[in-house]
């Protein structure tokens, strides 16, 4: 029954948004993870969203859910800081801070949680409509 497709769609979006929230949490948690080598520094991670192509192709190209294509690391160079007194500083006295932009991450978090709420609401409404449909003719 095609009525349940709406749950797949809302569910895929909720999954994608919760992954985004997880990445925000990871980025914020590691925002101050200082290292002594540029190669070991944590880099901000972001999800890549795309429309589910398969479901877009069947059923007259109608409604399609979201899939997460992957997680990419930010290409912004980590921040280099001169701190010779820091226990993790390298031979030249530098430490490396992750390229996490906390303000960006906070707005990302708000956007993700709003989108998640939207999809919960969609799923709730669809559920109510289906329950009413089951009672048809009573």
């Amino acid at each position, binding site marked *: 029954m095609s*009525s349940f497709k709406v749950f797949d769609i809302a569910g895929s979006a909720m999954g994608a948004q919760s992954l985004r929230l997880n990445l925000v949490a990871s980025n914020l948690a590691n925002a101050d993870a200082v290292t002594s080598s540029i190669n070991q520094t944590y880099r901000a991670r972001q999800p890549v969203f795309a429309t589910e192509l398969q479901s877009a192709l069947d059923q007259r190209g109608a*409604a399609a859910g*979201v899939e997460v294509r992957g997680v990419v690391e930010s290409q912004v160079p980590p921040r280099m800081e001169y701190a010779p007194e820091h226990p993790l500083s390298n031979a030249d006295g530098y430490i490396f801070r992750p390229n996490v932009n906390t303000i960006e991450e906070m707005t990302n978090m708000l956007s993700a949680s709003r989108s998640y709420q*939207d*999809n919960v609401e969609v799923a709730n409404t669809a559920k109510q409509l289906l329950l009413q449909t089951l009672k048809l003719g009573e």
Partner: protein
Amino acid sequence: MAINFDNALGIHPLALKLREQRTDILAGNLANADTPNYKAQDLDFQTVLKGLDRSSAPIKPALTQANHQLPAVAPFGPELKYRIPSQPSLDGNTVETEREHLRFAENAVQYQASLQFLGSKFIGLKTAIKGE
């Protein structure tokens, strides 16, 4: 005299099906609110209703080569259209969440209306069958 259910129920089963399809499409729009390059779509009821009288057949692509193939299901019918955004965004996404929300709510109410009409039809039929 036999009861013909198709005639007895009128346009309501079809309306219900269309509302259900629209629920899926609007849910898809809301689900893709953060997907770059996603284009919001919607059902055009005028086109759907016009298609009902079967006079306007859908346009089919011409097969000019021997190895050309028609898709099993048409990718999308003429009734499915892209929305024109009032505020286009830089990432090519044309979903305007608040408007989609309103349309979703509107569609839910219309679905319930269709459902109620259909329910009353059934109750009417029941009364007719019982003859009380």
